[in-house]
């Protein structure tokens, strides 16, 4: 998300960087690029106009701070304005009588049902007992979908099939939740267009009957100019209290986030990444991080947090111990590779590191190439038997041939992986003895070489 926007702004400010101070002409040039970048990022036209004029005024009048170059000053102004437009991160308001009610609304296919399950899971991790209500009686098997997800995460789902009215289901579901002593009720509703009067009436009914603490509009990060109409339409009828942006693990530039926030004034509360139902697939929205990313400054915090979540401390200790005792097997190696992949695609992970979006722009990093290599190593190790992974010494010529065939590579690729693994073992052994050897294979021609 946002990569292209950051590339674009970087090129603008590279140009600006050459001058001594920000002239009005510099600002005009920069603003033209900012406008184009925002439009290409699917920010809605009226929002772009507002944003650009606000930033232009600030930039022209701005004193260049002593410690900053003019280009940096302009970046700072754009950055600040972006954060302002994106707004403060929103927290859920679950105060008042128990159970608190959260109503999820949005267009078809925006990701409501998946998000309901993710939200339930993340609430439970906070120690609040969640409860789900299946009020989508229109889409075939929507009820079954929520039930399946509820079972998967161990959260109770109230449902009446598809013959009752959604507002009745919601009301009776709320009663059931009270009896179950739930802390938070999440109502899944059918996807609908904001111009569908009958279905919007139905949402008003559900709202009236359940008196929700939160009405969250779930929106696809890939949405184009329509974002303004969607957000305005739902807000007008329901007075929504927050936004959830989904499919942020895609490569859409996500201008919809800016548009929707700007026209509704309600905060973005979460962003959804990935289809798997895990609590970390629903992240709290951090405007400054997204703004940093827009400006190509990297999203190091998100990367660090993701890494922290995956590498739980115990696990790290266990591995460290294994490495020191030289018991780090190919199986461990495979597990680690898979963990890295779980953090996102390589390009996604790299995109969070400062400087990388620019390098990608200049073609220095071939994501596909790197992902291809990692995949290859994964495929090779996956083709080994458990025994072979734990004890690579038994890998004779015929075993290697079989592995090559099984993973669709040449025998020499298999040899390379084993060689790298052996070199790593040697390295570990020497490290343990307190020596720090140079091993050519690890730094050049290695996995990432």
């Amino acid at each position, binding site marked *: 998300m946002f990569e292209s926007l950051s590339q674009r702004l970087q090129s603008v400010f590279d140009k600006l960087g050459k001058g001594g101070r920000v002239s009005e002409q510099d600002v005009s040039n920069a603003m033209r690029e900012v406008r*184009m970048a925002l*439009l*290409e*990022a*699917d920010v*809605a*036209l009226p929002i772009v106009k507002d944003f650009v004029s606000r930033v232009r005024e600030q930039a022209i009048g701005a004193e260049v701070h002593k410690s900053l170059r003019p280009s940096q000053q302009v970046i700072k102004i754009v950055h600040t304005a972006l954060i302002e437009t994106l707004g403060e991160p929103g927290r859920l308001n679950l105060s008042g009588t128990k159970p608190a009610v959260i109503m999820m609304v949005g*267009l*078809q*296919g*925006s*990701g409501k049902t998946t998000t309901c399950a993710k939200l339930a899971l993340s609430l439970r991790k906070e120690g609040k007992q969640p409860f789900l209500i299946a009020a989508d009686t*229109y*889409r*075939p*098997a*929507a009820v*079954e*979908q929520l*039930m*399946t*997800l509820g079972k*998967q995460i161990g959260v109770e789902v109230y449902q009446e099939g598809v013959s009752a009215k959604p507002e009745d289901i919601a009301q009776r579901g709320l009663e059931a939740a009270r009896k179950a002593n739930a802390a938070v009720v999440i109502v899944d509703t059918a996807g609908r*267009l*904001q*111009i569908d009067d009958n279905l919007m009436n139905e949402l008003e009914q559900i709202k009236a009957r359940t008196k929700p603490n939160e009405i969250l509009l779930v929106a*696809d990060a*890939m*949405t*184009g*100019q*329509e*974002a303004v*109409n*969607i957000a305005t339409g739902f807000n007008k009828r329901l007075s929504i209290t927050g936004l959830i942006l989904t*499919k942020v*693990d*895609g*490569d*859409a*530039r996500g*201008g*919809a986030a800016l548009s929707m926030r700007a026209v509704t004034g309600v905060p973005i509360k979460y962003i959804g990444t990935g*289809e798997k139902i895990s609590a970390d697939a629903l992240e709290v929205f951090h405007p400054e991080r997204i703004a940093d990313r827009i400006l190509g400054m990297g999203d190091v915090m998100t990367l660090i947090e993701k890494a922290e979540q995956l590498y739980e401390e115990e696990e790290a200790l266990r591995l460290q111990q294994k490495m020191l005792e030289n018991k780090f097997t190919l199986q461990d190696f495979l597990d680690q590779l898979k963990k890295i*992949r779980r953090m996102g*695609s390589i*390009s*996604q992970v790299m995109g969070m590191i400062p400087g990388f979006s620019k390098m990608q722009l200049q073609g220095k990093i071939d994501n*596909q190439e790197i*992902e291809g290599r990692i*995949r290859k190593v994964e495929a090779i190790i996956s083709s080994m038997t458990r025994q072979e992974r734990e004890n690579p010494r038994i890998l004779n010529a015929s075993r290697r041939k079989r592995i090559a065939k099984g993973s669709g590579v040449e025998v020499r690729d298999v040899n390379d992986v084993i060689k790298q693994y052996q070199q790593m073992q040697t390295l570990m052994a020497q490290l343990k003895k307190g020596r720090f050897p140079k091993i050519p294979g690890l730094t050049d021609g290695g996995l990432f070489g």
Partner: protein
Amino acid sequence: MGIFKSGMAKTRQSFFGRIGQMLSGRQITQETWDEIEAMLIQADLGLETTETVIEYLRSAAREERLTHPDQLRRVLRESLLALLDPPRELNISGRDLSVILVIGVNGSGKTTSIAKLAHRLKRAGRNVALAAGDTFRAAAIDQLQKWGERIGVPVIANKPGADPGAVAYDAINAAKARGYDILIVDTAGRLHNNYNLMQELAKVRSVIAKAVPGAPHETLLVLDGTTGQNALKQGQKFAEAVEITGLIVTKLDSTAKGGMIFSVMTELHVPVQFVGLGEGVDDLVYFNPEQFVDSLFDQD
């Protein structure tokens, strides 16, 4: 066809209505160009296509010595139409079994589109079966099966979590054995920048190609009509993994204009075959370029 017309009936006059109202000045000024640009951008055509269209309009205005804004109407409409191909006949005849593979990102409307397409083909007298290839998303198989019951079309399915390539393979064998002449294969929604899932899709396609010579005979990419410029990347990435033969654009009954299809069509050289105009089983209609262009300028 009828539905497309009624769905877009109000839009017919409104193209000329809006353009007429907007371009009502006495002469062509910078403001005229700015207004056209704003309209195109807000219809999701994207900056590049918008600039190309405006460049073309400007040169046409010079060459034909157009001075009056309303003369631009005709040229604008024609230039947009020139960028769109009409749908072609689906390549699903003249053999025992034709296979249609349906792909797209999550939530774009694949399963619903498949049901509507199957209904349409069945009504045309074809013997259609569906393959439940989305084994990942919770209850996706149930969803397709419910549609199958509703439209009276058999669904060949395995259990959740099954290998989608194996599902396609089994479905083809079942379709051959039971004498169906069209098999539509559903796939799990996947984001185009997910390398693994795109590889998986390529594998499903190659399984199909091995099982039936020349298959899949149609590979239709489903695009959400409310998507912005990311649609182009979707098109490019899906086309890298599998050969796309046509597009289905969904949710065009919304106020979204779907203008991103200009760049997708230009880039992929494939036509929009169908558009989705609602949740009813009859709401999938052939793409009509003229009505589509006219609807771009509808102000709801």
